[in-house]
């Protein structure tokens, strides 16, 4: 108490009109992002998610490098029945390929697709949503009808169609990224638009306008950064969706095809070994679950950290 006493007397200058508040000052010193980081790190689930995500990304980068072409190289020497070893912790598949390295290669594929698909989603969504929200009126109305139309299309079918129909001419990974990207941006667009509608009337945007800032400058410098918080949350959660969608496509035989490695096509292959190698469907499946869990833990943690109102309830 003595310390807050001294803070108060220290701050009391001739211009100080505030009634003495004891505890508010200390908190206000921190910036918004410091606060967000602190809240995020205090959330146990979020931190677990972050560590898990870091571990998965690390695995996806390092093991495929360590393993060289082990994920791809078939072998007549190695068999599914070989005992597991340091070289092949998960054994070999029916073509004598190293399952562990195949799995990490598949994880790499998944994460690359997840990352770039979400990048496209965010870029399209943010651009679309900011124009719509900033323009308002008729433009906004028409643009939102476009969102309604895209939302009304059966998402997975659309992606499946795109991947199947244009898959032949573009590398499969790129097709999947594009297909997920151009069908999945509506949520981001709606979030950004909602923020823009709110921000458009806010004091600081009005002030920027009064000072004669151009529209594009106001959008890019002032409004987009403020609207990014919900988009960041949606993007993190979106990675999980994209990874699962890729796996489903590949599982159905339309995405990444053998011999390229994907968590989805490893599952398809494992189906033929239900009896003899029952564990094979668990490796890619559990990896998938870990990716989804990591992304959703981090996403939920970000949402709680970014929105102090929700934190109060917990």
């Amino acid at each position, binding site marked *: *108490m003595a310390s807050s006493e001294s803070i108060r007397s220290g701050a009391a200058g001739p211009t100080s009109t505030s*009634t003495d*508040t004891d505890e508010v000052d200390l908190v206000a010193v921190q910036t918004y992002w410091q606060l967000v980081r602190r809240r995020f790190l205090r959330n146990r689930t979020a931190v677990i998610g972050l560590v898990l995500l870091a571990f998965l990304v690390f695995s996806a980068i390092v093991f495929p490098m360590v393993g060289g072409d082990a994920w791809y190289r078939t072998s007549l020497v190695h068999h599914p029945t070989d005992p597991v070893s340091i070289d092949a912790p998960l054994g070999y598949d029916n073509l004598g390929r190293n399952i562990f390295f195949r799995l990490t290669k598949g994880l790499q594929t998944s994460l690359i697709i997840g990352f770039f698909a979400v990048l496209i989603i965010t870029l399209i969504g943010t651009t679309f949503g900011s124009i719509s929200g900033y323009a308002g009126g008729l433009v906004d109305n028409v643009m939102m009808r476009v969102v309604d139309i895209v939302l009304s299309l059966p998402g997975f079918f659309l992606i499946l169609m795109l991947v199947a129909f244009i898959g032949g001419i573009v590398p499969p990974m790129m097709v999947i990224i594009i297909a997920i990207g151009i069908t999945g941006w509506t949520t981001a667009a709606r979030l950004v638009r909602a923020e823009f509608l709110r921000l458009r009337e806010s004091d600081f945007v009005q002030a920027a306008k009064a000072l004669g800032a151009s529209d594009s400058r106001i959008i890019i410098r002032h409004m987009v950064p403020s609207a990014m918080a919900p988009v960041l949350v949606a993007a993190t959660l979106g990675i999980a969706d994209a990874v699962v969608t890729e796996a489903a496509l590949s599982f159905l035989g339309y995405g990444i095809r053998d011999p390229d490695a994907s968590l989805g096509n490893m599952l398809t292959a494992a189906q033929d070994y239900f009896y003899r190698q029952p564990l094979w469907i668990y490796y890619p499946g559990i990896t998938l679950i870990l990716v989804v869990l990591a992304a959703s833990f981090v996403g939920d943690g970000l949402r709680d950290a970014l929105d102090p109102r929700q934190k109060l309830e917990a």
Partner: protein
Amino acid sequence: MATTRGAQEALLEVVDLRTHFATADGLVRAVDGVSLRIRPGKTLGVVGESGCGKSITALSIMRLIERPGRIVSGSITFDGQDLLRLPEDEMRNIRGNEISMIFQEPMTSLNPVYTCGDQIAEAVSRHGSLTQREAAARAVEMLEQVGIPDAKRRAGEHPHQLSGGMRQRVMIAMALSTNPQLLIADEPTTALDVTIQAQILELMKALRERNGMAIMLITHDLGVVAEMSDDVSVMYAGKVVESSDAITVYDRPHHPYTKGLLASIPRMGARRERLDVIKGVVPNPLNLPSGCLFKRRCPYAMPICDNAPPLRLVAEGHVSRCWLAPDGGRPELGEAPSAAEAEAAALTLTVANP
């Protein structure tokens, strides 16, 4: 019972009630040693700033405190039995029957998906042996009693079809439908327009006359208290700081906090540049100062205030939690009792309430 000693039997006697909340940031002692007394058929005004623990006291009496809150100690004697020792199902028979409560927010206190008539009838049939039809008729009758025009039609309407003042009337109708001995009204007019406020207060007065019930009126508005109350208890930071009959509190307030509250009421005719406002804010409940909780905001603060003052008898039927002499002057040096003495004094004085 020792606690019912006094000029008149009490209908409700709260002694040394403590209700604490275990929050993530620490223990909040929302109610910390509150003693109150309500006489049958009389109105006790409980006054204080928001966050002083008035509502928590009321909810404690109703035993409606929810996690992370907990009634830690004290006793609440109603009609000769300690409510805190009753099993939950017996308490449920008292709740809404012998003690009813109305809340600050009429807009949100009624269930949006059921009709007003349904919600009143539910209270009636919960505590009586009426048929559904009789309960529904009683609901309409109650709506008429609280001055709702076209009561029959209104009974069939949903809360969103009514204005705030009307909804508070419905709440009052619901509370009074079981003829309670005690009505706890938690800021019943705060959320309403000024003209509606007056109407609701008039209504409560009229119904008090008719039903002969006691009222515990919780408010931050001393004007409302003046109009309604026989007795007044002033609360600050989870404790009662002053308690007496209404006239005494208004004419000869003892506690500096009460004086501050009274000075901050705008008065007709009094030409002042600005209202006297109590400086500062209520202390952070997680970080209460030692000694007197009001000392940092108190114009009379003196060294002795570093010791917590007990609730002391300053005049017949008038107690105050302040070190100032009974006449309001500075106490003589050395008059301060030790902490243990203060504790003892506080205990004896809580039962010497008006």
